[in-house]
């Protein structure tokens, strides 16, 4: 969909260009820079900056930044002289926009690199098979936290997927009038709930039921459910809306009741899209830390009962290992990074699965 360079070329330089006679808008036929110029200028800037820095004290970051700055300036000046102001501005913007994209990629690369290089040290079998019960220094693992994350996220998914999907079905297939409007509006509101507030809600709810100071896995699941429902509703809604009405009518005309039409025709037609949306929703909440910190807390041992007492989860485990390490610090920090790495791997896997699902189902829907 992007306006690639190709299109620019064909439109402006097509053989039979039928331009209206407005000469002032046409580029003044000045010279053009030869094709390789950009690369040449770039290499030259890199060398110049490198040379200066070599004399004053070298730093990679500074080198890259100054090279890009010099490159932008040099390109602008050169183009301005040869091609005129308009072309020069165009080239300058191109450099700025491309550089912005490069800047945006820096944190991604840096985060990935940091997490992998720091986390790989303890990415071993022990990490996945041991809890922290009785561990004071080295060793130990996040077995208990991984189980906790799976249990809590699983519970959250089990609650939010049916509620979210049914709500989306209501909005698309049944809803008209005021109730539907209200639901749409409040789902929007829900999308904006900060995760920490969802945690406070879950705590407040269970504090009133069980008593103050309560911590339990289920409360965390409730908090995640609050965060997950609007995502599921939105994505399912989008997908249901894509299903052409003709299919519904074809089904009705066969004497199939509406509910069966929805379950057997509409949802299967867009199942891939819905599954993708749900997978991404799970990926969104599985890394949530704040609500679990509040509603679930942390323990050192395995706790499989979400209705009884604290549970460990990967993000909270990483958090506490990092901010409240024991002595010596290093094993704790290592475990924090490895927990972060495991979390990242899970999230990336979920994202990849989502893409695969959407690919696999895409062509069938015409």
């Amino acid at each position, binding site marked *: 969909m992007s306006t690639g360079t190709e299109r620019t070329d064909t439109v402006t330089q097509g053989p039979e260009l039928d331009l209206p006679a407005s000469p002032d808008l046409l580029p003044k036929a000045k010279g053009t820079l030869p094709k390789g110029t950009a690369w040449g200028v770039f290499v030259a800037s890199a060398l110049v900056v490198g040379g200066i820095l070599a004399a004053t004290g070298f730093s990679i970051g500074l080198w890259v930044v100054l090279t890009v700055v010099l490159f932008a300036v040099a390109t602008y000046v050169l183009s301005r002289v040869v091609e005129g102001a308009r072309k020069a501005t165009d080239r300058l913007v191109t450099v700025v926009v491309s550089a912005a994209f490069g800047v945006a990629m820096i944190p991604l690369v840096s985060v990935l690199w940091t997490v992998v290089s720091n986390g790989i040290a303890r990415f071993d079998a022990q990490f996945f098979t041991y809890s922290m019960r009785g561990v004071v220094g080295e060793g130990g693992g996040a077995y208990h936290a991984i189980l906790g994350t799976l249990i809590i996220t699983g519970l959250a998914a089990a609650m939010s997927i049916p509620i979210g999907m049914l709500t989306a079905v209501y909005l698309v297939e049944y809803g008209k009038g005021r109730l539907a409007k209200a639901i749409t509006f409040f789902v929007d509101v829900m999308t904006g709930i*900060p995760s920490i*507030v969802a945690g406070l809600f879950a705590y407040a709810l269970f504090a009133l039921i069980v008593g103050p100071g309560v911590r339990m896995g289920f409360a965390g699941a409730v908090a995640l459910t609050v965060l997950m429902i609007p995502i599921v509703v939105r994505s399912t809604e989008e997908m249901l809306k894509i299903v052409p009405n003709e299919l519904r009518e074809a089904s009705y005309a066969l004497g199939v009741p509406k509910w069966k039409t929805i379950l057997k025709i509409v949802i299967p037609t867009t199942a891939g899209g819905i599954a993708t949306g749900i997978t991404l929703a799970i990926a969104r909440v599985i890394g949530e830390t704040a609500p679990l910190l509040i509603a679930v807390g942390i323990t050192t041992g395995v706790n499989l009962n979400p209705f009884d007492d604290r549970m460990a989860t990967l993000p909270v485990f990483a958090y506490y290992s990092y901010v409240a390490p024991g002595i010596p610090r290093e094993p704790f920090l290592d475990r924090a990074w490895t927990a972060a790495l495991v979390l990242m791997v899970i999230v990336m896997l979920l994202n990849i699965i989502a893409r695969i699902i959407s690919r696999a189902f895409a062509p069938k829907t015409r």
Partner: protein
Amino acid sequence: MTTTEVTPTPRTARPVTQLGDRVFAGSAKGAGILILVVLAGVAAFLLTEAFPALVAPASELPGEHNLAVYIWPLLFGTLLSALIALVIATPLAICVALFISHYAPRRIAQGLGYLVDLLAAVPSIVYGLWGVGVLAPASVGLMTWLNDYLGWIPLFAGPVSATGRTMLVAGLVLAVMILPIITAVAREVFLQAPRLHEEAALALGATRWEMIKMAVLPFGRSGLISGAMLGLGRALGETMAVAIVLSVSGVVTFNLVSSGNPSSIAANIALQFPEASGLGVNVLIASGLVLFLVTLAVNMLARYIVNRRSEFSGAN
């Protein structure tokens, strides 16, 4: 769109529907209503639990301050960090979105889009660890430079924090986190710009940048604003990155590079809640309520702008 099978005809008072239809429609409606109930619950339970803090005399509250005095620096920190993030992320996001929609070769544009989306997939705890472990030490040099040369601006007054755990760095981390959100909205908006206008501009001999200025940016302005607002909403509520990165002292200051910073509401809750008891919990929940209201207002504003835009584009 389809609706209910049956409509009141003058003759059939109660239209016939299948049992399955009634059950299914009922449960779909029930799920929708459940969401409304949950949301009402969120408001009600937060209010109930915040209430003791709202009515307690100042002498019983933490630090023996009145509640507003307790929350104000936190609110200030919340707004300041989110604002920094917004100021940094918005122009960057617009450029990134433009790059993907109009500059990158078409074949790889979608892949680049995925890359940016990956940024959104990174859990916030990871950003927090990265912020304090990598970005903070790495930006000490930058902040020293800012302090040396721009120190006369109150923002960079210093003294520069030696660890780099400053408001500026917290803002930077938040900027990275909201960048993909704003980019996604901006990309959508840019792709919706009418192709005909673009091609007309190019056919008149406009350069690519002139075309974007003429045909793409004006069309997307309100979309960009709402995208930025959504990002702002996210930055306001973001907890862990700020909680881990920022070294806090409860002051209210615009000094972005020193080690004395106000905390944010969300980060303060995360830091204090595990140890809090009694009235302390109620105070934290009250502050959470304030955060909820602020993000709600921001998000509503964003939606309002979006909706106004869709009305406009519908007319076109």
